[in-house]
């Protein structure tokens, strides 16, 4: 297995190697909170990072399988396209922001704005998420096994939110929706695939009331 030690190798060298390698396994040690580790990969590589990472780790990921052994800073897996990113610890704000596909698994908690503007990614959080999670989320699924902070799903479009624990104040135009058998089965498959131990029957579903999609003519005189 190829190994990079970020005490001696630069993040730029690591990322260039990842961009040039069509496959294989790679380990990264001593990340020490550095930014932009394993960003922009467009190859089926497996990357294992031993420690805590800084901003934008695994950003724009395509097909690669990335595991972060510790915590992740803001914007982890931002704009993920496909593949998977697994965080063993906690994630800071804006995890999976604007992600278009693939899977983001957070084994700990995620802070504010998890899944902001997500566009197709599946995000599974074994712990809780902070405020304004799934803000303006357009497509994909956000699964929260713990609690969700205030303003969940504010201005949400067609993304689907599942929460097992308590939910703070719901955001504008976000409502609880019926959990159909199809939703339970789909969620069950996702939990099994991501290896997160939770019972799909215990979750509630939230989504868009679709009241903000069109300008309300009743308010035309206000302007």
């Amino acid at each position, binding site marked *: 297995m190829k190994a990079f030690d970020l005490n001696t190798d630069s993040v730029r060298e690591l990322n260039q190697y990842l961009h040039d390698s069509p496959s294989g396994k790679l380990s990264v040690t001593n990340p020490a909170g550095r930014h932009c580790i394993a960003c922009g990969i467009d190859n089926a590589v497996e990357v294992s990072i031993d420690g805590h990472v800084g901003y*934008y780790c695994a950003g724009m990921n395509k097909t690669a399988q990335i595991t972060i052994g510790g915590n992740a800073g803001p914007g982890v897996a931002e704009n993920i396209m496909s593949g998977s990113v697994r965080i063993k610890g906690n994630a800071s704000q804006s995890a999976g922001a604007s992600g278009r596909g693939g899977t983001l698994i957070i084994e700990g908690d995620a*802070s504010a704005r998890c899944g902001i503007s997500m566009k197709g990614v599946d995000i599974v959080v074994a712990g809780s998420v902070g405020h*304004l999670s799934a803000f303006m989320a357009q497509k994909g699924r956000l699964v929260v096994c713990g609690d969700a902070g205030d303003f969940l799903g504010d201005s949400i479009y067609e993304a689907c939110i599942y929460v097992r624990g308590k939910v703070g104040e719901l955001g504008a135009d976000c409502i609880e929706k019926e959990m159909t058998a199809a939703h339970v089965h789909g969620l069950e498959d996702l939990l099994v695939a991501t290896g997160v131990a939770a019972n799909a029957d215990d979750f509630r579903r939230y989504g868009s009331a679709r009241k903000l999609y069109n300008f309300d003519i009743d308010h035309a005189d206000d302007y």
Partner: protein
Amino acid sequence: MPVRKISLIVVYMGVHCKIPFGTVTAGRIMCGIVGIYLKNEGLQPELGGLLAAMLVEMSDRGPDSAGIALYRDPVPDSSCKLTLHAANRCDWDALRTEMAANLQADVKLDVRASHAVVVIAASAASVQDWLGTQHPELRIMSAGSAIEIYKEKGLPVEFVRQFRLSELNGTHALGHTRMATESAVTTEHSHPFSTGMDLCLVHNGSLSNHNRLRRRLRDEGVDIQTDNDSEVAAGYLMWRLREGDSLEEALERALKDLDGFYTFAIGTKHGFAVLRDPIACKPAVMAETDDWVAMASEFRAIAQLPGVENAMIWEPSPATVYSWGQ
């Protein structure tokens, strides 16, 4: 309802944008703050070195100026300790002699780059009054019994060298690296800002109602010297503490009165406190081991500390006051 949606989109643009990556990064990283509180007394001789490593790691966030507030060697109640800054060359020996003669007290003066720490067997108020009338060209950076504040324009690495940070012992310290966004790059505009005896504040973010608040504070008799927004936050705390609030009460009230984005770290004689704005727009990470408690804008600053691999690490919640050693 449509209005509400528009306002939320504005918030959204502030916290996460669909504009090119580099622009987002540059827009989000104004200033870096660090803090360390030593639980293990054996580490006290190394405080300056530990702080220096954290500060230099935050250079990308603030290359314009750097500053620290460090707490060490408290003086007896009958004495006070002041940090002075001279913008131009100063004959510090002559000042020491003049002070001793005029204030009829023993004076110890320790020069560090453009600053000097004065320890004098007199009340802080009397020394401040005397300096204000006799030496208005000198700026009083801090006053109290343990606090020392040093700050200067330029890269953090240059600041660390110039001020010989690795020599400094102490119990706890805060640091700041500044990327100026709303006022000039000068030593006066740099952080930390003194907020009273043995108190100081460092700030990452920007306040939007600082002009109105500055006028109100000046009406209340608070001396605000620059057009910097962070100095207004420091002045606000000074005012509330003067009015009898505890530090926690003052910070709770600040959540209502200060409008904008901020992570504050507030140094006190015995520890420090941290507060993030209610939507947690600005980053902050905390960590604790048996030997120390640390906070920083980014984990990579904390990653410089010994024993970090076994630290408990967490992100402080918004609108929540965290404090140590008070």
